[in-house]
């Protein structure tokens, strides 16, 4: 039990202090080494390893997705850095080149993009890159100070001999003209050093990145731009605005007199939904990644993303959390790793863990399907269980390997159908596949119906795409073979079928469907399809064969994960916990604590029936329950009276009048304290409408 508590502690520690140094983790990990029984350290190690792959993968994805926009930004800055001497007239107009970088509404996610942008610019374009945050720049003075600090500080680190120079400047006034002086000296030194490299651009631009443009005070921005525009001749400024909403925010924030000083170009980064899709592909729809999420969990995580924050980082954090929960709560999760490793640890399962496997619902289901003799062996012989377990693990891995390519094939087939019967995104299809038997759903039926009326070229194109997918995965070779066979046969039909099928199709179409809407057209087409089954042409025969084949593939490979034996090892399924943790409802929990103190305090004496007030409860709970019975304004005196009544109910047996009076001041004080706590929690506030009344601020939730 103790070790479990410690493990519990470890995982909580990891999650909360994610950014805290590794020292702490290693330190706590040391505790886990002594208890070999629970395999805590093993699980911890696996979890760490998985998390590292998640992190590297997400970083790679982020870099890939941002590459295009970052490169074009760097290009923009290079162009302006070079071109400012030639464009003489623009100098006169004092326009500052400005890039408006559209990043989507989730501001915390931008940090990573800006970090890589800064690195890219510093590596390839100019060392003078400053990024400022609205929070630090409440006034122009602070903004200028920030810019100077970052620039000149960097100058010191670049050139040691300039240290006293900059120290002098820092002692002087914090102005852009001081920066100008500094810039001149620095570039002079640079030019001296680089006289032999002629192709180096003459003026290195000074890039100022405004990370969150919307949050800046507009007056501050205006002043800063005005000041900077005075110095454009000497200091080639370039601004980058990180904009969360839309480019018109610039015009809303800046008057024409200021925005006319800018030369704005817009750059779009990838939308967050696309980002999520690629993260999803890489981490969840990937057989290489052993940890899996059940359908409900995916729904919770995607729901938080779509409904609440649009933040990919939060999605990854949710994934991390579910990983930690899984490895913490499921002792068998030590088998949730790469195949070889899993097989190895399956061989050396401890007695306790074998027992745990026997209790897994999916394993029990598996046992039931076996012969009676085999059943007995499975229930009594530990070694046999270990062997079977290895076999089942192999099967599970194979299932995953086959599952994802087929899922992608099905998605590519159905994603082009009208109205997306199986969902627009592959994640929707995935969710419905692992949840239940896909082929029993209505949506699947309608999708197949629609597939059955595909034209030939569409069908061939779709099948080609599937073949591509299968080719790239290099498994399921026989399926690929069959598919290519079908494609070949469809193409061989070329001459024969197109004539006669199109012939009667067009004539009848012209006669019947002139004034029908899309829905009716579809219905009649479907009807016609069923009517025509008797006299099908060769293409239609082949087409129905293809559809049959796809259907058989779906039935074979896209079985729900829950039916797989030992799926509990890999699948994390407690969506309730996840929702409770990630999508918190603070008010509900405060109200629960106040109305049912037993829930948190676990004290037997606090157990009460619904609706009654126990006098043993904390004062705050009593006061809270009493205030629920009041209207918008609460008379403090009545409240106190009610409170005293509840209090005295406890001491009913030994009450006599003198004692009541004696304890009155104490109770009064307790009441006052409870009321002020209520005020602190935001349930009531003092009001000027009536003396000795307080106003209620919350409603409902009794």
């Amino acid at each position, binding site marked *: 039990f103790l070790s479990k508590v410690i493990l519990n502690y470890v995982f909580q520690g990891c999650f909360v202090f994610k950014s805290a140094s590794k020292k702490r983790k290693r330190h706590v990990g040391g505790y886990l080494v002594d208890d070999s029984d629970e395999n805590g350290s093993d699980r911890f190690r696996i979890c760490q390893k998985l998390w590292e792959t998640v992190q590297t993968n997400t970083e790679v994805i982020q870099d890939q997705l941002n590459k295009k926009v970052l490169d074009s930004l760097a290009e923009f800055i290079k162009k302006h850095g070079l071109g400012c001497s030639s464009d003489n*007239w623009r100098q*006169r*107009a004092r326009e500052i*080149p*400005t890039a*408006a970088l*559209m990043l*989507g*509404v989730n*501001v915390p996610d931008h940090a990573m993009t800006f970090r890589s942008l800064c690195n890219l610019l510093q590596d390839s374009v100019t060392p003078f890159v400053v990024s400022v945050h609205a929070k630090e720049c409440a*006034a*122009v*003075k602070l903004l200028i100070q920030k810019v100077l600090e970052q620039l000149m500080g960097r100058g010191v680190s670049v050139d040691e001999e300039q240290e006293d120079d900059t120290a002098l400047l820092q002692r*002087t*006034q914090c*102005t*852009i*003209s001081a920066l100008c002086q500094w810039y001149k000296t620095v570039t002079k030194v640079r030019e001296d050093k680089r006289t032999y490299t002629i192709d180096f651009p003459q003026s290195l631009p000074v890039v100022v990145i405004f990370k*969150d443009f*919307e*949050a800046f005070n507009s007056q501050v921005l205006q*002043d800063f731009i*005005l*000041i900077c525009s*005075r110095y454009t001749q000497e200091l080639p400024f370039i601004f980058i605005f990180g904009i*969360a*909403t*839309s*480019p*018109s925010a*610039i*015009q*809303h924030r800046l*008057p*024409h*007199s200021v925005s*006319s000083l*800018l*030369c*704005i*170009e*817009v750059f*779009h980064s990838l*939308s*967050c*939904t696309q980002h999520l899709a690629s993260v999803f592909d890489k981490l969840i729809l990937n057989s290489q990644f052993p940890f899996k999420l059940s359908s409900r969990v995916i729904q919770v995580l995607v729901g*938080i993303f*779509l*409904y*609440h*924050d*649009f933040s990919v980082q939060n999605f990854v954090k949710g994934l991390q959390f579910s990983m930690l929960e899984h490895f913490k709560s499921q002792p068998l999760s030590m088998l949730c790793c790469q195949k070889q490793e899993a097989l190895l640890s399956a061989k050396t399962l401890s007695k306790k863990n074998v027992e745990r496997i026997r209790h897994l619902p999916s394993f029990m289901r598996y046992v039931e399907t076996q012969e009676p003799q085999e059943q007995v062996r499975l229930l009594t012989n530990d070694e046999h269980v270990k062997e079977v377990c290895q076999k089942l693990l192999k099967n599970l891995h194979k299932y995953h390997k086959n599952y994802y390519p087929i899922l992608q094939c099905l998605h590519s087939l159905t994603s082009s159908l009208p109205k997306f019967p199986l969902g627009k995104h592959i994640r929707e299809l995935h969710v419905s596949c692992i949840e239940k038997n896909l082929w029993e759903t209505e949506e699947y039926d309608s999708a197949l119906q629609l597939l059955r009326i595909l034209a030939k070229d569409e069908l061939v194109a779709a099948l080609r795409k599937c073949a591509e997918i299968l080719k790239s995965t290099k498994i399921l070779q026989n399926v690929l073979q069959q598919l290519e066979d079908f494609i070949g046969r469809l193409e061989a039909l070329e001459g024969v079928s197109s004539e006669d099928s199109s012939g009667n199709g067009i004539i009848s179409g012209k006669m019947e469907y002139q004034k029908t809407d899309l829905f009716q057209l579809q219905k009649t087409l479907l009807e016609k399809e069923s009517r025509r089954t008797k006299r099908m042409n060769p293409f239609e025969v082949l087409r129905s064969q293809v559809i049959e084949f796809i259907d058989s593939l779906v039935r074979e490979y896209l079985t729900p994960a829950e039916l797989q034996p030992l799926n509990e090892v890999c699948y994390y399924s407690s969506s309730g916990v996840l929702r409770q943790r990630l*999508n*918190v*409802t603070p*008010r*509900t929990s405060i109200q629960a604590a106040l109305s049912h103190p037993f829930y948190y305090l676990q004290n037997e004496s606090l157990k009460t029936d619904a609706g009654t007030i126990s006098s043993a409860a904390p004062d705050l709970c009593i006061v809270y329950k009493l205030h629920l019975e009041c209207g918008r304004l609460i008379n403090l005196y009545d409240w106190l009276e009610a409170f005293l009544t509840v209090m005295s109910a406890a001491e009913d047996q030994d009450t006599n009048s003198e004692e009541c009076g004696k304890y009155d001041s104490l109770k009064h004080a307790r009441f006052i304290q409870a009321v002020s706590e209520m005020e602190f929690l*935001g349930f009531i*506030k003092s009001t000027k409408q009536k003396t000795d009344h307080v106003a209620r*601020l919350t409603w409902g939730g009794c």
Partner: protein
Amino acid sequence: MKIHICLTGIKTIILDCNNISQYSVFLINSALMNRRDIMSAVNPDQYSYPSVFIYGHRATGKSHVVLSIMKDLELPHASVDCVECVSSGLLFHQVLSAFFGPDAAALLPRCPSLSDFVRLYKQMSSNSPATQTRYIILDRAERMRDMDFSLLPALLRLQELVNDNVTVILLSEIVWEKFRPNTGCFEPLLFHFPDYSKGKSLVQILSWDHHPSYTPELYASYINILLGVFFSVCRDLRELRHLAVLNFSKFCEPLEKGEAKESDIHKLWKNIEPHLQRAMQTVYLREVSSVQWEQQQMDEKEATTLRVLSAHAHIELPYYSKFLLIAAYLASFNPARTDRRFFLKSHGKIRKTNFLKKHEKTSNHLLGPKPFPLDRLMAIFYSVVDSRVAPTASVFSQISSLVTLQLLSQVGHDDQLDSPKYKCSVSLDFILAISRCVCVCVRLLDLLALSLVIQSQVVRQERSLFTAVSNLHLL
């Protein structure tokens, strides 16, 4: 030729025309045309008038004239832009270092007060007494009003304070009446730079940058066409020059192709006019950057349509954020009394005759968004959103992120914790676009229609008013 220009009214400066670039002479000429008669000879020992206040619209040549005079006559002067002076210390620093060198400025204490400045100035000027009047030129002097309240009156009579021959010249876009402090102060000499007139001065000034490969006459006619389009919206000389340079290559296109001669003004006009109109809608408003505009001119044949800034007005928002914004809009523009009717299914009977009070009948859009408490926002949100939403922390954090995105704004700084109040700061179009995105429930659109369609007429009027107001120079 000698031009006598009166700058201060008391002291006259005699300029030699050859020393000054023709351009600035022209500016000076046009600005000071009617002041020639005040000139008189001046004794250099005499102190000049302590302070001068020069005002006039943007780009009427105030700073240019003053600075050119200073530069060309090599007068001792300190030019300070008040936008830069985030503290009065910076101002003192710049003035001292311009007059007495950076060493003198370094003597200022950390947070110099006005008396520090005066003391140091006195000390320095006694070491190096003025042979000529020293000038302190304060550009964008309207910013001084936000600084220390005693600074402006003190600077106006700095001459008396430091006992030196010094004149403070204030340059501003607004009139002196807006400066005068309550307690009264020394009245500076007022001096107005009038706007350039369309006919004479603007054409003449703009014609100065004519292209070397074309005749000045052609350029002048081009300027006339340009002014014909832009004069109604823009009188800013700087902006006009910018536009003139931007569009000149397009104007010359038919000439280069040999399709027209320089005398075919009408043909050239026909060619350039629609182009200029387009420029007014895009590049003038900075919807398209000037670089992009040039690029577009170069590959015009491909008919690339530039995506203007305001074209990407669409914002992707999380699902609940959209509903929160819609709810906020409804709360801001509907009277609270009508909530019952709009959002409750069984709202009971409301007498139709005086359902809306008289003052409510005037468009709420004209009155602007009204603040609403958080409770009301949440109540409307719950009735508008189609599914049951738990009051989770993330729903509430979305409200605050909408505030940081400035789609909502928080009003009133007291009582932030108990009952914060918000205003919706997005436009009708924006909300309509959003509700089209989430139009899962028809009822919502109905609601919006109900509350908005009546007022759309007014909105249109109001929008034109808005643009008019924003064009005005607000003081």
